[in-house]
């Protein structure tokens, strides 16, 4: 998951590198750190460093990390020969390494050789039974073959052992959403919020799932979590501001204004509406009329 400012920095670096302004290594490091999937670019710029003898030697020990990163990017772009070459270099440097073994397994995966990949991973797990990355490959392979219910099953089993793996909980939540199993997705986000209560994207995602399920109680809870997202992001998160408004409308429709609580909470949606208007006026003025019209229909326009 990438925050807005980090995503912006990555995009800036990307265009800088693309336009010949240098900074390729910085860009590649950022992509690695953010776990972003920019395989075309990584392959292009990573290879240009690796193929340049001087640039490569400047990297020192990081050279091997780059080989690994380029191998993954090559697999994603279906450039299997490039990946194979990178793996060959790495195997020579680190013979018998489990980490390299994993990369080999992934190359088999990217070729669609699922059974062979499974064998490689089984062998690696013999030596290193608690290797989380290898365990998760099973989930990835199920997902890649389109067997989402198997992916869910494996992921649940994985989380029974490695329950602190936030990425895994998020992945499971997203798979549930894609299967329209919203209650199960909500459970995953609840786990994430419990373990990391100040991470805004979890609050936001939880609110969005609850809104999707619908029903008065869920909408009221969703509104609370949209509100906590607003609080955690200093009012800068557009989706959360919109969410507060949408929940208010939906709740009002369901209660027909009978709920006393709503009158007390009405400040919140007015503030959210105002914040949206201010933001659009400044950064998206050509869309302001659409926003105003929508808020008016929601009866939130002051």
């Amino acid at each position: 998951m990438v925050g807005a400012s980090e995503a912006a920095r990555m995009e800036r670096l990307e265009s800088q590198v693309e336009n010949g302004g240098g900074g390729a290594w910085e860009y590649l490091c950022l992509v690695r750190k953010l776990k972003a999937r920019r395989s075309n670019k990584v392959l292009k710029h990573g290879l240009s460093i690796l193929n340049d003898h001087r640039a490569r030697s400047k990297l020192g020990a990081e050279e091997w990390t780059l080989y690994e990163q380029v191998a993954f990017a090559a697999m994603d772009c279906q450039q299997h020969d490039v990946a194979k070459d990178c793996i060959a270099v790495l195997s020579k440097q680190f013979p018998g390494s489990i980490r390299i073994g994993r990369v080999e397994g992934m190359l088999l995966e990217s070729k669609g050789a699922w059974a062979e990949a499974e064998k490689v991973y089984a062998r690696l797990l013999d030596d290193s039974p608690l290797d989380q990355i290898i365990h998760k490959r099973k989930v990835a392979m199920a997902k890649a073959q389109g067997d989402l219910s198997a992916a869910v099953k494996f992921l649940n089993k994985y989380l029974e052992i490695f329950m602190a793996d936030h990425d895994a909980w998020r992945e499971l939540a997203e798979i549930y959403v894609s299967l329209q199993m919203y209650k199960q997705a909500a459970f995953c986000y609840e786990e994430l919020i419990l373990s990391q209560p100040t991470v805004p994207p979890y609050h936001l995602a939880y609110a969005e799932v609850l809104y999707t399920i619908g029903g008065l109680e869920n909408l009221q809870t969703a509104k609370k979590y949209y509100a906590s997202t607003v609080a955690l992001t200093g009012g800068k998160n557009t989706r959360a501001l919109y969410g507060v408004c949408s929940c208010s409308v939906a709740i009002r429709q369901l209660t027909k204004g009978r709920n006393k609580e709503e009158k007390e909470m009405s400040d919140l949606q007015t503030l959210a509406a105002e914040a949206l208007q201010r933001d659009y006026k400044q950064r998206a003025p050509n869309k302001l009329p659409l926003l105003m019209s929508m808020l008016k229909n929601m009866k939130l326009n002051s």
Partner: protein
Amino acid sequence: MGAECCYEVSQIAYIKLVLHALKHRSAAVNGLLLGRLRQDGGATATVEIADTVPLSHSQIGLLPALELALIQIEEHFEAQGLSVVGYYHANERHDDVELGNAAKKIGDHIFRYFPRAAVLLLDNKKLERLQSSKGRDPVVQLYTRDSSKSWRQTGSDGSNQLTLKEPAANVVLLDYISSEKWQEIVDFDDHLDDISKDWLNPGLFN
């Protein structure tokens, strides 16, 4: 709908759709089709798909962004005499040729307001072959609702044909692909992340 119905996709609509999918290759993407119904006289009618608005490239099964988008997009295009006439979807996996449940649900929703709603599913294999085949057929599959309320792929049986309004659309598409035009596409998701990004994509084809 027993009457014959044709679906005609404009170049802009078609290219935006494909570019959107190409920008987010490892994700499913979706969007709305904007257009109007044209009565051709007699029993035939044509749905002109004049434009598309790319919606999302993540968490497609969730409601909030979709609702917002429908409200704002409908309002904007009303002034041009266009309304939401369908939905497009591109699957996450290369070899997935099924129209998924999320897509069907959204299609159903649009169908309630526009009974000749079209759902276009990107055909990944056709897109892949486009470079070498230089074909003129659209790289999307058309689905319409049949009398049993399910979404059916339209075949070569003659009814519910999908055509490209500008016959050279694929040539233009290939050109944009080679110049990596997809990097400039903005969807509603991008707008929600940064409201200064415009989901209308003005100036995309300048």
